[in-house]
């Protein structure tokens, strides 16, 4: 057993820290620090800066821009990025569709899409969930019927995150309705400017617009946009959902937000006094720090000991506890802001600190974290079934 990073990993950490704190445009990092939403342009510029440095898609095969990093190095890359207030590369491109195309796509489809995907020249949307197929994704009903060298797609997707920015959408569609539900699904790439495709925004409880419904009405898609083999889409989706073990718990950003909350608390009491003098506030923060330490160490255990390629059992804890703490810190922010948290609609001249004004929208927004990407109930099901062997 050994606690220290190797000299090589320390140097790597330093390299990443320097890059993220000096090479990502300051306006982007300021927006993250202010806990405000990034614009499309900011997200694109951020990922392009990383891609120019060759570190936007380290998890891809090397020939398509990936890095042959160890799981620990990928963890360090991810943590340093978040600690510096940098948004990770757009997940739809970097962690989802990119790896699937690289692993299962034809040479032609790889050449056509991968460079643009890495550079965010194409903004991908994810078309998996449907109104009746959320956690039970295999029940999806959107159909793709082959007519000549085209698929005709009909149906509806929902919860399409940032779909309003999407150039293309990767979808799971039913190509064979007559077999077991997992067996008749294909992975199809669709140009979002295609006739018959419409995007409708869904307004959320935080007042923001980040998810959408996407409707397909006789959308004609060239058959060459199929990734891999027809009816093998379920396998590709499982690969997509299972291959991103690193970074599933946003430790770095939660840590940064907690440190920021503590700093805010120091003058947030009556007349500018420190709320840390309130023993209950102090205890709440101290306990969060300890829980976050336990989570970070668990993430380190997972990445340090996953060399044999098999996921470490403790990795199942990461998504579950990662979102629990992410949400707990947004809750702490609302507690610290108190009545000032009501000033969400205040304009620039407001005397209420900006961070107090965004506290509630963040709190409400992050209720999503324990729902998306496999809800926390699904995570408990996985732990109970796969790790403990409790199969009802």
């Amino acid at each position, binding site marked *: 057993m050994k606690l220290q990073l190797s000299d090589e*990993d320390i140097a790597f950490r330093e390299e990443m820290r320097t890059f993220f704190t000096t090479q990502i445009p300051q306006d982007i990092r300021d927006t993250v620090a202010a806990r405000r939403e990034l614009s499309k342009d900011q997200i694109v510029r951020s990922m392009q800066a990383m891609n120019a440095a060759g570190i936007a898609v380290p998890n891809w095969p090397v020939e398509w821009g990936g890095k042959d990093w160890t799981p620990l190095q990928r963890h360090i890359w991810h943590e340093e990025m978040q600690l510096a207030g940098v948004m990770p590369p757009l997940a739809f491109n970097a962690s989802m569709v990119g790896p699937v195309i690289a692993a299962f796509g034809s040479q032609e489809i790889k050449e056509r899409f991968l460079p643009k995907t890495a550079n965010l020249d194409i903004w991908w949307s994810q078309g998996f969930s449907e109104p009746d197929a959320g956690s039970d994704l295999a029940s999806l009903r959107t159909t793709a019927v082959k007519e000549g060298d085209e698929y005709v797609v009909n149906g509806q997707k929902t919860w399409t995150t940032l779909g309003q920015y999407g150039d293309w959408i990767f979808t799971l569609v039913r190509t064979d309705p007559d077999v077991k539900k997992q067996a008749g699904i294909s992975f199809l790439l669709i140009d979002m400017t295609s006739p018959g495709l419409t995007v409708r925004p869904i307004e959320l409880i935080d007042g923001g617009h980040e998810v959408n419904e996407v409707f397909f009405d006789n959308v004609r898609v060239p058959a060459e946009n199929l990734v891999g083999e027809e009816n093998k889409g379920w396998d590709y989706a499982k690969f997509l959902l299972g291959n991103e073990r690193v970074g599933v718990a946003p430790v770095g950003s939660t840590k*940064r937000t907690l440190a920021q909350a503590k700093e805010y608390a120091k003058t947030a009491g009556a007349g500018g006094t420190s709320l*840390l003098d309130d023993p209950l506030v102090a205890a709440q923060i*101290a306990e969060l720090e300890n829980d976050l*330490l*336990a989570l970070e160490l668990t993430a*380190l255990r997972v990445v340090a000991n996953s060399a044999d390629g098999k996921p470490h059992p403790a990795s199942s804890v990461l998504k579950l506890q990662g979102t629990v703490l992410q949400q707990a810190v947004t809750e702490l922010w609302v507690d610290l802001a108190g009545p000032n948290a009501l000033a969400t609609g205040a304009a620039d001249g407001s005397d209420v600190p900006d961070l107090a004004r965004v506290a509630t929208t963040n709190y409400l927004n992050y209720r999503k974290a324990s729902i998306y990407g496999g809800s926390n109930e699904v995570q408990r099901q996985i732990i*109970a079934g796969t790790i*403990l062997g409790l199969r*009802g």
Partner: protein
Amino acid sequence: MDFTLDSEQTALRDAVRGLLGKAYGSSEDRRTVTKTDPGWDEKTWQRLAEMGALGLPFAEEDGGFGAGPVEVSIVAEEIGRVIAPEPYVEAVVLAGGLVAAAGTAEQRAEIIGALAEGQLVPAFAHTEPGNRYSEVPTVTATKDGDAWTLSGVKEPVLGGARADLLIVSATIDGGTGLFVVQPDASGLTRTSYATFDGGRAAHVAFDSTPATPLGEPGADQSDVIASAVAAAQIAYGHEALGAMAFALETTTEYLKSRKQFGVPLMTFQALTFRAADMYVSLELARSTVTWATLVQLDGGDDAAVLEAASRAKLQVSKAGRHIGQEAIQLHGGIGMTAEYSVGHYTSRLTAIDHALGDGRHHLTALSKTLDDHEAVEPLP
């Protein structure tokens, strides 16, 4: 960075697991042992000595085996898996640790060697009635010429009556001193009783009792005590990990095999989700406790080890309560019975929680240090 055991450490774990598995193969074996004084098995202690487990943390020149905190943690975890009542953390890590850190060369040679061989079992008399986790003893040490005497009461002293030697903390001019008290010293009375977890504690009274300073006479040993306590807190953490892992395994097996309404309990999602949460608690505690051991191994500054021990103890307190309580609940009535094992695990976890500072105590301490750092950084 590496969180795994090497092959020698794995061999040590297997050997200790084998030995303790034989001694405490069923919870009935443990109950037989805890029913009679001293509440643990002298033969098992002797076998642990023969295996080298009792001398692990001590320098070879003192009669130990020159191993480190990782090896100690392995033994402690196996103790916890079967909740062996032998006083490993109390006698070896805590009392032995104090002697190793504060004792003169002569005292170390005399005490450590005998402790490692299983011939001498020391106890640390530190806790005082009504004094919770105070670091300032009410037991006082008085100096007359070169002779020292102690007066006052220590209670509960774990293993205090059976101990072959007492290491006692007492207030001296300018701090807290450590003293060695022989079992037959005049003015010493020891009254033994059972604790809820099957152990033994004692009321230990000193009435002008002759005592020998441990190490330099009159020296303030507060830092030595804090370090030994931190080492014991971390070792207790590993003992708790062993106990929690077993409690979860037993509960899982029960959910698989026990039928109600004609189906196994694991058919009910309300129950399996609770087991999943127990697993989460266990893994988070394991991460923090293992880290604290590595901070200790790292040989960094004392303050870092003390803080790591405090953090580990807090996490263990939360996890121990959660897992202990749920283990009983998920078993239903059988979990309440003395004939079945899980209740004893919950008892032991409760005892560990309240020894050397419970979760609330450590949370309070950590709350007071919030200003010292921006964020908690686990890696040096």
